[in-house]
């Protein structure tokens, strides 16, 4: 990457009248392989270099991007961005303020212990074939089996007009499986994404065979022996996987300050949370939830955000109290505070906006087995398929594809399609016990226009909710 092209853009933007400018020059190389029902699907690779710039002109914000990195194209790009922002500033009532942050200069290179380049295409596809073979050997009927594996390395050079210069290199490994288990005429499905910001060695920590084997057996058992969820109120123990979707949808998203200020209202929605709610109670004392980009090797991890602000852990809920929102420099400016480094862009071609990183419930004091032992009658929900939440992030639903009755402290028969359908405060107010061991699960989070799918993780320990009425399908 020729870093001078980013520097050229910044200098030109300032010369044309920008009070602030930044550039993200990126190069990414990746390849992908897929296997469907045992047959290889088209494979391929791609490499792209491009630049995205943001300018503030008379209090209005302009963004532009291109993959044409010659001086003439860049000059046109910057001129357009400045001109468009200037035009917007004439009609706007409000002016955008990016809160001042210290400048940073750094190089952050995440090394691959086993480089993607050292693994041949044949080996990558063979890995999927090996997974498929192991799955078929289980004797479970899985007529539809989709797997894909993608590897990529992204190199990014961030520079702004305040003096920050940050270079980073991030490897990314993603494995997706979509499985349908069939018993007679009935089916049960699973969609699972596994990611690591590591080299090929990341596969070791994914434990793919173990995970998929346990998954299809559980789906089969659920079809064969699953009963409907009881209608009465009972205790519900949820796994880290289910805790994760709650953490992400019912805490991470509603705490995004841009959403709270209405910036995402048209598409990704707003939030029931307001700045005035900071310091107020939303859950029981045992509920604490963070968004933390500083976890090694996870898909949501980064050292600096896409405005060059150092990443740090954010306590969204601490001991049941709303503590902090997720901010970029613009929303922090609106609240008169500092950014907490939550600005991310999926790639150079989209503007950085407020995003989550790794969002999870903090651990408590309970051993996992004790959560079950201590429950007289309840349901343990291990995983889900269907889920959704409204655009103010208040009414949540998830439906299990793997769940079990708990009777007198023991896991018993499977439960079919148990639905958690509760408001956000109901969920956090019902939690009375929190496990010790946190697990993080991967996902792609969508937001922005055009939609930016960004890698995140979500999770927590096992949690118990008291006196919940589950829904059925």
């Amino acid at each position: 990457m020729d870093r001078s092209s980013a520097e050229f853009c910044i200098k030109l933007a300032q010369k044309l009248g920008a009070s602030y400018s930044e550039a993200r020059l990126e190069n990414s190389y990746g390849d992908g392989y897929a296997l469907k029902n045992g047959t290889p699907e088209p494979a391929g690779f791609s490499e792209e270099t491009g630049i995205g710039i943001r300018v503030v002109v008379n209090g209005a914000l302009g963004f532009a991007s291109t993959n044409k990195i010659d001086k003439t194209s860049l000059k046109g790009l910057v001129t357009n961005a400045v001109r468009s922002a200037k035009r917007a500033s004439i009609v706007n009532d409000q002016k955008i303020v990016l809160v001042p942050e210290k400048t940073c200069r750094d190089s952050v290179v995440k090394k691959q212990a086993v480089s993607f380049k050292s693994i041949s295409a044949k080996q990558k596809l063979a890995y999927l074939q090996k997974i498929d073979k192991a799955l078929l050997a289980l004797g479970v009927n899985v007529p539809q089996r989709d797997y894909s594996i993608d590897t990529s390395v992204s190199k990014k050079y961030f520079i702004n007009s305040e003096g920050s210069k940050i270079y980073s290199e991030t490897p990314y490994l993603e494995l997706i499986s979509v499985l349908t288990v069939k018993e007679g005429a009935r089916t049960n499905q699973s969609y699972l994404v596994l990611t690591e910001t590591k080299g090929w060695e990341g596969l070791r920590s994914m434990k793919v065979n173990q995970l998929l084997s346990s998954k299809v057996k559980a789906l089969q058992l659920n079809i064969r022996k699953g009963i409907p969820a009881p209608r009465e109120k009972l205790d519900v123990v949820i796994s880290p996987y289910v805790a994760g979707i709650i953490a992400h949808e019912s805490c991470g998203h509603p705490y995004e300050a841009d959403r709270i200020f209405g910036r995402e209202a048209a598409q990704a929605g707003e939030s029931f949370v307001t700045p005035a709610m900071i310091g107020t109670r939303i859950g029981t004392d045992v509920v604490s939830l963070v968004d933390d980009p500083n976890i090694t090797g996870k898909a949501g991890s980064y050292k600096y955000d896409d405005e060059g602000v150092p990443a740090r852990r954010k306590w969204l809920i601490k001991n049941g109290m709303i503590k902090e929102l997720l901010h970029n420099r613009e929303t922090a400016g609106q609240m008169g505070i500092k950014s907490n480094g939550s600005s991310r862009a999926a790639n150079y071609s989209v503007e950085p906006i407020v995003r989550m990183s790794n969002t999870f419930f903090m651990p408590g004091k309970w051993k996992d087995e004790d959560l079950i032992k201590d429950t007289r009658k309840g349901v343990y929900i291990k995983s889900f398929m269907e889920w959704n939440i409204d655009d103010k992030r208040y009414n949540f639903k998830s439906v299990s594809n793997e769940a079990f009755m708990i009777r007198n402290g023991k896991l018993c028969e499977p439960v079919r399609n148990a639905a958690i359908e509760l408001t956000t405060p109901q969920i956090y107010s019902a939690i009375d016990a929190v496990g010790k061991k946190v697990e993080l699960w991967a996902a792609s989070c969508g937001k922005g226009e055009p939609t930016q799918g960004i890698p995140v993780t979500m999770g927590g320990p096992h949690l118990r909710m008291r006196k919940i009425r589950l829904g059925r399908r």
Partner: protein
Amino acid sequence: MKLFEIPEYGVKKALRLGASDVIVDAGRSDSQQIKFVNNDIAVTKNWQDESAGVYLVYKKRVVSANIKTFTKSEVDHTLNKLIKLAKLLPPKDDYYGIAKGYSKYPKLDGVYDRQLVNFTKGVDKVQEAINAGLRSGAKRVTGVFDTSYGEGYTVSSNGLDIKDKGTAISLSLRALAAKEASGHKVIQANVLRGFDVDRVGSEAGKIAKKALNPQSLSAGKYDILFYPLTVADMFGCVAGSSSITMQESGMSFLKKIGEKVASPKLTMYDWANLPYGADSYAFDDEGAPAQKTPVIVNGVFKTYLHNYSTAQKYKTQNTSNSGLVEPAPSNTYIVPGKSSIPTLIGKMKKGLIVTNTWYTTFQNYQTGNFSTIPRDAIFYVENGKIKCPVKDIRISDNMLNIMRSITDLGKKQEQVTSWAAEPPNFGNNIITPAILCKKLNVTKSRS
């Protein structure tokens, strides 16, 4: 090497290297977006891109790549690398080739408007839309206005050799009269004529005003009148499920061709060469001439969507929906009924008008069990009259049941796309009227 010299050169070179089928395309695009929030412009965006890509088959090994720089040596390098990659892979036994292409296709009306090339009146359009929303009762107007121009050149080893260009314009606008009272309207087209942002702002503002002070509603069975934006989100899943690859992956609730999957009132086409369609094309990605394909006719499932290879595999007709890797829907066209919106409302005993929805997610793609969560204005209807706006509900039902429960369709269509498309929705363009269904299951957060 000039960008548009790449396709012809690339195909010839790939064939010399031993490829059996090749498609090379090149394109450039110039797009603008204005995102407006709380009556102000939040950010202006510009994109200028050039791209070139190769789809290549070597002894039934199917591979693809983009070309990162537009030089002869880089094209050679990419092709050599692709052949090398293909040689490492096992064959895709269910691959049967690419469609025959042409150098001329029937002209498609309404896909290009030179007024939209370097369009400079975006700020004026946005202000017009905001003001219309505010005049109609909104306190805050927010949304996204997009315009774009693109041109491309594609050559295949089976006769495709054509240059193409197109433009697009769209506005997605949400008007809020209060925090829980909003209306959302979308308009999209390829030409400026008839693109009425004032109407969009005004209609969204009026809906928002009517939605003030929403009430709680009991869970239960309700007739539901789905407005077009809602249909885009939900029936996008029907269109997505009709792709043969979704069926192969176990992601489709549409099973047997000839099966009755919907009420006889429902007829749905995949209409790729629809004049003025936002997702229209004269030819698909491999050069098959675009067509109008009946997917559901009078409630009966007629065909999956195919590209050439999948059609050969299943010994059926190509529907021209390539998607090289997988067939994908083009414009989904739902045939309108004869009823006005007031007539449809008049037919509801105990029902809901749902104006928008998102997060349409499936518990089981094969059975069609799903839920979706309405957003923006929802109105409760009793004995044919709107009683009050309501909030905090969810539709938890089955997609086949919904299709079978259709009792009537509106006479006026809108062309819309859902922003929040989840699989199996491809997020494609839908031309649809409002749709009335009977007795669907509505749930809500439990006490």
